[in-house]
């Protein structure tokens, strides 16, 4: 009897411990697709685009909304505005969904959002930039404790060009195509590098037009003996009346470490350089668009290696002189 009781006790306690579920922190994990939409549209036209929002975290209450955005800097970061403005009209074609109306999304579930985009008749020509935000409601507050609650949102950018004729204004200008160097002589920048140093390029293009543009082209490195290396420019959008740092690939920016990587650069050249080099670029912005050019030079020499060799030579000469037998002896 005692044995049976003991066994039953152990059995029940052990199973009770196994049945208790683990407690996890409240996690939010959302994805959105597609992450970017570019649209050129005539006034009076509309189209429907299907988005998908997926919940990989705990169950959430989501609200889908649209905000305007503007470029924050020349690195591609954005500033989302609090208000909505512009002539473009957005609606959801889903039977059971509306913009700004919360809906529930369980763990592992996804929701297709059929976004209707309409440019009304008479909409002024120009560019309009929006972010589609899927916003998770923050959790309920915990009473009696000091706590912070997070409201997580994930966004997808929508770039809209309204044009009646289909023509786009392309007005690019190279603002900067230069090497990042710390050497200055009489307030003039010296483009001189050690042969083993990385050579960082900064390349900024300004879009002075009223429509976004996308650069295509190459950055070319030409050496003393006619050798050339070409780097493809990554075709990223430059929004109207803004500047953007142009990036080229393949670049040593990938897995970059050290001081050179702290400043955003367009291209980091690495290798062994000796002599004069010329860096040039040629960009186009689609068919029948103007082509823009720019170029710069630099000189590379193994200064550190030369200094080391000279130092070793001097030390060797001193040692040899010091320990060589005196001629008088």
């Amino acid at each position, binding site marked *: 009897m005692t044995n049976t009781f003991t066994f039953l006790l152990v059995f029940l306690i052990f199973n009770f411990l196994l049945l208790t579920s683990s407690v996890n922190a409240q996690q939010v994990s959302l994805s959105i697709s597609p992450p970017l*939409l570019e649209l050129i549209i005539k006034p009076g036209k509309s189209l429907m685009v299907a988005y998908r929002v997926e919940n990989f975290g705990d169950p959430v209450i989501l609200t889908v909304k649209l905000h305007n955005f503007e470029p924050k800097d020349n690195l591609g970061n954005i500033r989302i505005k609090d208000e909505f403005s512009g002539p473009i009209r957005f609606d959801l074609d889903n039977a059971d969904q509306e913009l700004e109306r919360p809906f529930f999304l369980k763990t*592992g579930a996804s929701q297709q959002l059929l976004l209707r985009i309409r440019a009304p008749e008479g909409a002024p020509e120009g560019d309009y930039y929006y972010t589609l935000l899927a916003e*998770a409601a923050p959790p309920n507050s915990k009473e009696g404790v000091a706590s912070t609650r997070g409201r997580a949102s*994930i966004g997808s950018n929508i770039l809209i060009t309204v044009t009646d004729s289909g023509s786009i204004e392309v007005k690019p200008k190279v603002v900067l195509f230069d090497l990042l160097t710390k050497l200055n002589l009489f307030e003039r920048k010296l483009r001189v590098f050690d042969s083993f140093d990385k050579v960082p390029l900064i390349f900024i293009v300004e879009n002075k037009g009223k429509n976004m543009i996308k650069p295509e082209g190459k950055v070319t490195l030409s050496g003393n003996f006619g050798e050339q290396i070409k780097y493809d420019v990554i075709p990223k959008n430059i929004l109207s009346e803004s500047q953007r740092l142009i990036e080229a690939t393949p670049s040593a920016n990938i897995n*970059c470490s050290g001081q050179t990587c702290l400043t955003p650069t367009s291209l980091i050249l690495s290798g062994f350089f000796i002599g004069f080099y010329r860096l040039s670029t040629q960009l186009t912005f689609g068919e029948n668009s103007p082509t823009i050019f720019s170029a710069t030079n630099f000189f590379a020499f193994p200064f550190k290696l030369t200094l080391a060799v000279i130092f070793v030579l001097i030390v060797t000469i001193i040692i040899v002189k010091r320990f060589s037998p005196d001629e008088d002896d």
Partner: protein
Amino acid sequence: MQKFRSKLKSFLFTFDFLIVFLTFNLLLLTFQKVFAVDMGSPRFQIKGGNVNSAAGDKSSDGYRLSDTIGQLAAGEFSSTGYVVKAGFQYFHSIIPFRFSISNINVVLDPNPIVPNSPSTANTVLTVYFGGAGQYQVTAIEEEPFKTLSGNAIPDTTCDGGVETCNETQAKTWSSSTAYGFGYNMAGEDIPTDFSSGTQYRPFPDRSDVESPAVIMSSLNVGKDRQATLTFKANISPIQPAGSYQTVINFVATPSF
């Protein structure tokens, strides 16, 4: 003989119990929650932003086309009155843009907050973006860290003097007599001013019409980017008691 039978009975009883006990526990241990997914079976699971079986660059004498297929509205198409492009044409990503926060209901520790003894808590932010993922994550507090009755712990200015921090510049906050509420970042793609675990910034305050601060951003190629955000609060002995709370708004967006 009877003694032997009794011993055998006792042994069989114990053996039966052990069998039942172990079988039951094995069943309990193998029981796990299974979540339904769109595509898959108990043996496999397919996840993908798009199906790249035919994606890539195509060209002939007459045309050059770059596309991704399978993704909703992906690729380039034209119709009367509009042209639309979805997704980044310069890379073919199979990983959709995804943002995770490990904990959105963070309790500061120790709790309650003790004067001159900072309370802290962490949450981990993760951004998944295949290929040349350029993105940003911003943060802003909806209102100051305060009680329902309106007593607020002010936003930190860090240690003060040359170590005075603001919404865009982190500085050292290690003094036990420097009071306020702020945050530190550690990990990948964080602002360069967070050079150590003692560098803090205050959150921008939406009720003060301030702009959100960029707390993670990347220009370079990356897939899973992770950073830890540490909240910190330190109060003076005259800080009123209460349940201090705030909502931090985190927004993750890809670039354009």
